[in-house]
C-alpha cells in the first residue's frame, strides 16, 4: 500500500517504496529533497532555520537547522545503501509570505544556508521552486523523482 508520509516541521523522512509520497506544507521553511540516481530511495528534510543562535538549546528536532539537517539526511540515506556520489537534490520553499518590512527574511537565509550545506557535501541541486511570496504544498513521489508543488488556489508545477 503506498503511503502518504507527512514530513513534520523540523523533521525528516526517508522511503524506498515506489508509490509512497513524502509531503510538507512550506512557508519560509525549506524542504530539501534528496534522491538517488540508482534507486528509489528518497528523503526529505523540513528545515526551519538557517542556523542555531548562540545560547539556544539544541532541541530534539532532527532537521531544525539547515546544516545539521542536510548532513543527517545524507547520512541516513548512505546508511540505507546509497552512494554519496549518486545523490542529487531538489529544493522547495523559503518564501516570504508577508512581503517586505514585516517578519525577518528567514526564508531567503534558509535557502542560502541549505544550498551551502549541499555544496559542501558535493550534492548537486537539479531543480528548485524557491522564494517568492506564496506557501507551497510539496508532494514528493518516491520512485519517479517527480516533485509536485502546489500553491494556494489551483496552480501547480512539477520539478
Amino acid at each position: 500500500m503506498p503511503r502518504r508520509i507527512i514530513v513534520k516541521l523540523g523533521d525528516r523522512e526517508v522511503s524506498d517504496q515506489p508509490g509512497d509520497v513524502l509531503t510538507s506544507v512550506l512557508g519560509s521553511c525549506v524542504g530539501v529533497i534528496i534522491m538517488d540516481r540508482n534507486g528509489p530511495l528518497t528523503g526529505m528534510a523540513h528545515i526551519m532555520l538557517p542556523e542555531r543562535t548562540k545560547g539556544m538549546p539544541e532541541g530534539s528536532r532532527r532537521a531544525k537547522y539547515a546544516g545539521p539537517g542536510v548532513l543527517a539526511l545524507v547520512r541516513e540515506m548512505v546508511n540505507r545503501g546509497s552512494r554519496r556520489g549518486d545523490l542529487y537534490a531538489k529544493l522547495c520553499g523559503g518564501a516570504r509570505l508577508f512581503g517586505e518590512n514585516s517578519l525577518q527574511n528567514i526564508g531567503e537565509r534558509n535557502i542560502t544556508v541549505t544550498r551551502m550545506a549541499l555544496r559542501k557535501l558535493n550534492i548537486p541541486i537539479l531543480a528548485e521552486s524557491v522564494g517568492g511570496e506564496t506557501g507551497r504544498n510539496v508532494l514528493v513521489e518516491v520512485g519517479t523523482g517527480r516533485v509536485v508543488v502546489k500553491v494556494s488556489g489551483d496552480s501547480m508545477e512539477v520539478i
Partner: protein
Amino acid sequence: MSELILEEEEVDVLREIANIGSGHAAASMEKWLERAMLLDVPKAFLVPVEEVAEHIGDPLQTVICVYSRVSGEITGHLLYTLTLEDAKVLLDILLDPEDRKWGFSPDNLSAIAETGNILFNAYLAAVSRTSGLELYPGTPACAADMLEAVVNTVLLEICEGSEHTLVLETQFCGEGISSVGYVLFLAENEALKRMVKKAEEQ
C-alpha cells in the same frame, strides 16, 4: 540552556489576560461593524510547535491572515486569521455591493487588514493595561495562503528556544453571523513568563 516550560497556573493567567484583550477587541469590532459581537472565552493550548496549525484548523485550507509584530517590553506576534467564508462575511458587512464583486482584490484585502489593525490595537491596549507591560502593534501585513504555511512562518520567529508553544485563540462571531475570524497571540515562553510575573505584581 534547557527549555522553559509554562506552568498550568501561568497558562491560566495568560488566558485571563487574553480574555480581557479579546473583550476590548470585540468592543472595537462592534463599533467598526456596527453590530453586536458574541465572544467565546479564549482558548489557550500548549502544543508542540509542529502541531499548532492542525489545532487551529485544516492546515491546507486557504486563509486570509493579517499579521502584526508586537514590540515594547516583550516581543510577540498577533495574527487575525479568516477562512475564505469568514472573509466573505466580513466584506459583505464592510463594503458596498459595488465593491464586493472584486472579491479578494488588494483594495478589499486592505479593508480586512484595517479590521485586523483595529482588533490588534484594542487587544494590545487592554493586554498592556492588564499586564503592566508597554506593548505596541507594528504595521499590519496581509497574506492569503495555506493556514499551515502562514502559521509556521510566524512560529519560526518564536520556536527557537522552545519545543512547545502557547497559542491564545479567540474566535469573533457577530449577531446572526457565524464567524468573522479569530485572533491568535503568540510569544516566546520567556516573554510569556515575564508577562505573568509583571501581571501578578500589579
